[in-house]
């Protein structure tokens, strides 16, 4: 239903999206993960027709977004990151207007509007003006306007940014309901826990490139059972490097140096807690001073760290 092939978007010499490819089918949530500025929104904008791709293709329900844009857009629902509502138009009229913009008319439109109002939990506030709504209610209406025409593919661009926990939970329910109804959903976020909860497949993007792709389980398997150990403090770069290399040679397990700087060292290894004394001894022996230790069990967050050497929210 959604297929992206070798998609690129350049701004002069700057490559915002670099030949990324992925696809997702009916009734599935595909997560596009990456830090701010990684290229997630640019990818969404190319798929939605807001931006013209520099090269590559994207198709929605079999329709190329460039050569058959109108048909592609008819099958596409977009829930933008920023609110996109008529604040001075009742909620029900917002839904009606966007339904008509996608070609719905008459009884079909009215039944969809009623159904969406129920889905987003605004049935009793249908005549209310969005400018009088809470932030969470506006978010839900924003979601409703994107799905009122019952699209086959839904693009959700960081829909939970600035949303309170209650509204976030409600949003997850709505996404799951659309997925269960058969929609293909592309969900961008930089919150790994959201991706782990919602997504069947995930692509991790950084600096415009896909650096990992697969199901949540597949990606976890890539990480194995290794923990991530982060040491903060002060570390002489060369001496610490030599000490850790020596430790890796002596270590029978799977110790690996992920990143190193003067103020931090990141390592990954299985059952890290059992090897902490040896690691501290090696670092101290190299003249390092550990002021803080962080030990994390494997998850997508640590996978991102493993792949890029930096935190997802940096």
């Amino acid at each position, binding site marked *: 239903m959604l297929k992206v092939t070798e998609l690129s978007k350049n701004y002069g010499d700057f490559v915002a999206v670099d030949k990324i490819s992925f696809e997702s089918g009916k009734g599935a949530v595909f997560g596009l993960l990456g830090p701010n500025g990684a290229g997630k929104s640019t990818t969404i904008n190319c798929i939605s027709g*807001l931006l013209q791709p520099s090269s590559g293709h994207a198709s929605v329900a079999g329709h190329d977004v460039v050569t058959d844009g109108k048909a592609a857009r008819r099958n596409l629902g977009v829930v*933008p990151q*920023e609110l996109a509502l008529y604040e001075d138009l009742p909620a029900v009229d917002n839904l009606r207007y966007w339904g008509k913009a996608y070609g719905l008319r008459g009884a079909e439109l009215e039944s969809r509007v009623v159904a969406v109002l129920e889905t987003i939990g605004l049935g009793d506030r249908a005549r209310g003006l969005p400018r009088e709504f809470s932030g969470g209610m506006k978010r839900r209406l924003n979601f409703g306007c994107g799905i009122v025409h019952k699209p086959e593919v839904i693009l959700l661009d960081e829909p939970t940014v600035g949303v309170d926990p209650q509204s976030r939970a409600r949003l997850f329910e709505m996404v799951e309901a659309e997925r269960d109804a058969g929609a293909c959903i592309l969900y961008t976020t930089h919150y790994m826990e959201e991706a782990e909860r919602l997504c069947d497949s995930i692509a991790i993007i950084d600096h415009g490139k896909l650096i990992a792709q697969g199901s949540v389980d597949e990606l976890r398997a890539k990480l194995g059972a290794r923990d991530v150990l982060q040491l903060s403090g002060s570390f002489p770069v060369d001496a610490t490097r030599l000490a850790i290399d020596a430790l890796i040679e002596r270590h029978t397990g799977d110790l690996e140096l992920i990143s190193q700087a003067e103020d931090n060292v990141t390592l990954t290894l299985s059952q890290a807690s059992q090897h902490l004394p040896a690691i501290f001894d090696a670092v101290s022996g190299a003249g390092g001073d550990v002021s803080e230790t962080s030990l994390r069990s494997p998850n997508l967050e640590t996978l991102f760290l493993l792949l890029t050497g930096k935190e997802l929210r940096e």
Partner: protein
Amino acid sequence: MKFALTSFRKDLARWRQDVLATLIWIAIPLMIGGLITALMSGQGVRPHGVLLMVDQDESFLSGFIAGAYSAGELGELISVEKTTLDEGTERVNAGEASGLLIIPKGFGAAFLDAESVTITLKTNPSQTILPGIITNVTEILLDAGFYAHQLFGDQIRSIQLMGDNPGDAVVAAMAIALQNKIETVAPQLFPPIIDIEIIEPPAQEPGVPLALLFLPGIILMSVMFAANGIASDYWREREQGTLRRLVFAPARLGGFVVGKALAAAVIIGMVGGLTLLIGFIYHGIAWNKLPASLLWISVSGVALFSWFAALQMSFSSRKTASIISSMLLFPLLMVGGSFFPLAVLPGWIALLGRASPNGFVADRLTTEITQSGSWAIDLNSWLIVLLGAVLGLSTCAWRLRTGFARA
């Protein structure tokens, strides 16, 4: 076309939520128009003053002076009240009167004997116009008295001496003496030595009242305010993200632009129409001119709206767009006849005004409401306005497609 109607209904529904802006667009021009009309109609309160007179002489001549101040149109400006010296001084010092005239005892006799006599006029320093009038009238009276004395001094003296019941012979003698005097001066008076030729201007048709000439400009002020205000809705839509969402949808941007233009036509028609209606009622303009006038301002309003919108969409921020648009609005109103009718502006400014978009519209509206018969605006003017609207709307659609909606 279906989406144009959908957008049209959507925009009308949104404007219903913002009645205040619509009222302001109507109220400001009406307020200005009301003030101008009040000034032009000349029905303001005329000044009126009181001249206090202390007549210590109580003679025929002093009575004549009192009567002179309240005769004819002067009497509508000045009321003469006789009073005593003390009360008169007190009242004029308190600012209750425009002047105090004191005619001393012996004034009449001194006048008849051509002796020097002083009458005193004390004016109210807090007033300017009425004391000035009183002073001028007093000087004229004294000059007139001097010349009357030169001509008819003997006769006046005789009248004073003859008492209340002069005999017929005395009256006849007096009449003969006056006749002789008039005959003596007649060669200088009849015919006058100076021949004055009075040239009357050619007969003109009744002119258009000045206040009526203000009406098109006032209506255009409403229309311009509304057009500029509605044009800013593109920026409003961009800021609230709805333009961006529209790009995601398969609906045509052209339909969206047409829908907004239709809504603008209705709103401008209502705003301008109400101002027009008030003007028609106030000036008693024939009702058969109303449909053409209303259609003219609605169509012209769409053209003005579209150009304001295109202008505002060419800037990179709403603030800049708003400032530039407002900076342009007021000079246009000034030159386009909204503050002074084009008919009373100096030639080159009037020419410039008629070439300005709103001046062009106001000029044709003036034609419609002042000429006999309805539908007086020529076909070329209609075509120019329609072409302007089409070009303006096309520019808006082009601007939406070339990035304004995507940002």
